[in-house]
């Protein structure tokens, strides 16, 4: 219960998200409450359409809730302006996407450098190199994404998420586009990063992927419930 004593990384209080209106009204999140503490590795499971993507968008400050409060590091982000949200995304959250979302025109290290362009950062190249070293790609820094395997591309994306030293890594189906060997690699890397103290929230629909997390939540029909704790 050590983690609960620390300050929460994030906290959802009765958050709902509704799309559309009238007959087309869809309740994607229904009264969701959640606390995540520093150092946790949380997996959110659920079938497609259960609302996990919406949860991910809200957690990642990519979207704002219809009602309820979202506190990130103690700050209420549900009322923030677009500019302030961009600031939070840049400083405090690292994203890992299913489709990697690397810019094909740039080398690996230029991709990793991207978030640093939107903040005042010195030694951008060195910082990017250190992040690439952490994911074991020091020998691929000048390769373009199309010269890298899927697993390597996702590791570049993880380096990009790490490079700003964020409070939270948010991974959306990080193994969804990978073969099983690469999936194991990437999951091992995420576990390693978590072991070094970084908080991770990972969205997945696969049980064996969720199994690497220490805490599993299940979503269905817009509601979130605590699943089996895995050690």
């Amino acid at each position: 219960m050590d983690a609960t004593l620390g300050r929460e990384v994030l906290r959802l209080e009765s958050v709902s998200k509704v799309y559309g209106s009238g007959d087309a009204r869809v309740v994607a999140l229904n009264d969701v409450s959640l606390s995540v503490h520093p150092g946790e590795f949380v997996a959110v499971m659920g079938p497609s359409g259960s609302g996990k993507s919406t949860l991910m968008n809200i957690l990642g400050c990519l979207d704002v809730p219809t009602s309820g409060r979202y506190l990130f590091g103690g700050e209420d982000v549900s009322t923030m302006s677009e500019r302030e949200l961009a600031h939070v995304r840049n400083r405090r959250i690292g994203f890992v996407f299913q489709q990697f979302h690397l810019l094909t025109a740039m080398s690996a290290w230029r991709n990793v450098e991207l978030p640093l362009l939107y903040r005042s950062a010195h030694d951008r190249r060195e910082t990017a190199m250190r992040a690439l070293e952490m994911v074991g790609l020091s020998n691929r820094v000048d390769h373009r994404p199309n010269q890298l395997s899927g697993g390597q591309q996702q590791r570049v994306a993880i380096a990009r998420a790490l490079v700003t030293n964020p409070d939270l890594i948010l991974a959306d189906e990080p193994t969804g586009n990978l073969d099983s060997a690469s999936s194991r690699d990437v999951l091992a890397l995420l576990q390693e990063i978590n072991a070094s103290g970084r908080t991770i929230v990972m969205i997945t629909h696969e049980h064996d992927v969720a199994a690497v997390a220490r805490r599993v939540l299940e979503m269905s029909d817009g509601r979130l419930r605590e699943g089996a704790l895995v050690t």
Partner: protein
Amino acid sequence: MSLLRTLETGLRGILGHRLRSVLTTLGILFGVAAVICTVGIGTASADSVNARIASLGTNLLTITPGSTRAAGVFGGAGTAASLTMQDVDGLMSKDNAPDVGAVAPVVQRSEPMVSLASNWTSTVQGSSTGWLTANARSVASGEFFTQDDVNKHALKIVLGSTTATNLGASVGDTITVNRIPFTVIGILNTVGGQGFQNGDDLGVVPITAAHDVLTGGDPNSVQRILLSATSGDTVGSAYQEADQLLLNTHASSLGSSGTPDFTIQAQSSFLSTAQSVTTTLTILLASVAAISLLVGGIGVMNIMLVSVTERTNEIGLRKALGATPGDLLRQFLVEASTLSVVGGLLGVGAGLLAGVLIPHFTTIGVTITATPVLVAVLVAAGVGLIFGVYPAARAARLAPIEALRAQ
């Protein structure tokens, strides 16, 4: 995001998408160069057409005498000998006829001319120093006779180019006209046919000399009088002034029906032709330029729109990584303005180069003026900027997650 880093990001975006950047630049380049070339060629063509029309003498008037009438038989226009040197002097007065420029009396006869090398029969006109201006002609080599020559009844002749060629005569030679020796002092410029006459096959001598040795008869009488208005715009008032002046001086010889014994003809058909040709050329030029700009603009617009659609993903990713809409807007502004300015400048360079090369290798003339260059650059760069920035600005306002999902 600092200005320096914005510039760096924008320029890296250009270098990272070389094909797209080159295509955009090329689109603007060709648009600008095409406008400069077509307008340049059009302007040169219009100038040359207008110059040719002006050489026809759109501001010229011709006064011919009325008809003889003997025993009820009209001799036809121009047969009466009613025009005199007094009429010429009256028309040359600036007080009576301020809008009349040059005045040239003409007597003429067909005469055999003989040179050392050859002989040729052609029209010889006797006239005054105003002949050149009143005919919209010039001297290609040598000179025209002077007032002094007219006063001294000098036996000097200026030849049309065809006559000079046929006689094998050049400036300084002596030829005989009706067996009287004349000195060739000038060769006229070549004008080609004028109505049914060959404007290049004639000789011109001082009217005094013509009266002496060629036409004979009353030295006070002239066959016709040529006038030029001071400009193309004053043809109407010059006509009025000449008409009024001659009506006054010829009042005594008006027929019983009040018919004047002279006729004034303006080259009005030339004038209206000239005006309609100029209008047509202006419309043609404007539409060619507009179409070139439109085509160039649409090319640039297409490339910009396609590239923004293609980049929606990148926009979403950059937003997720912390770029504000302002950051993205400035990035696209740097990209679009760099490409537009580079493309515009290259286009001006290509257009100017073509303006030098086309006349060098072909007979087509190119006249480059500042206005089409400026308009072309502004429109092409403006289209590049608007269609580079506006769709990107819209994409930058998308929720990042939607932009990320766009494929």
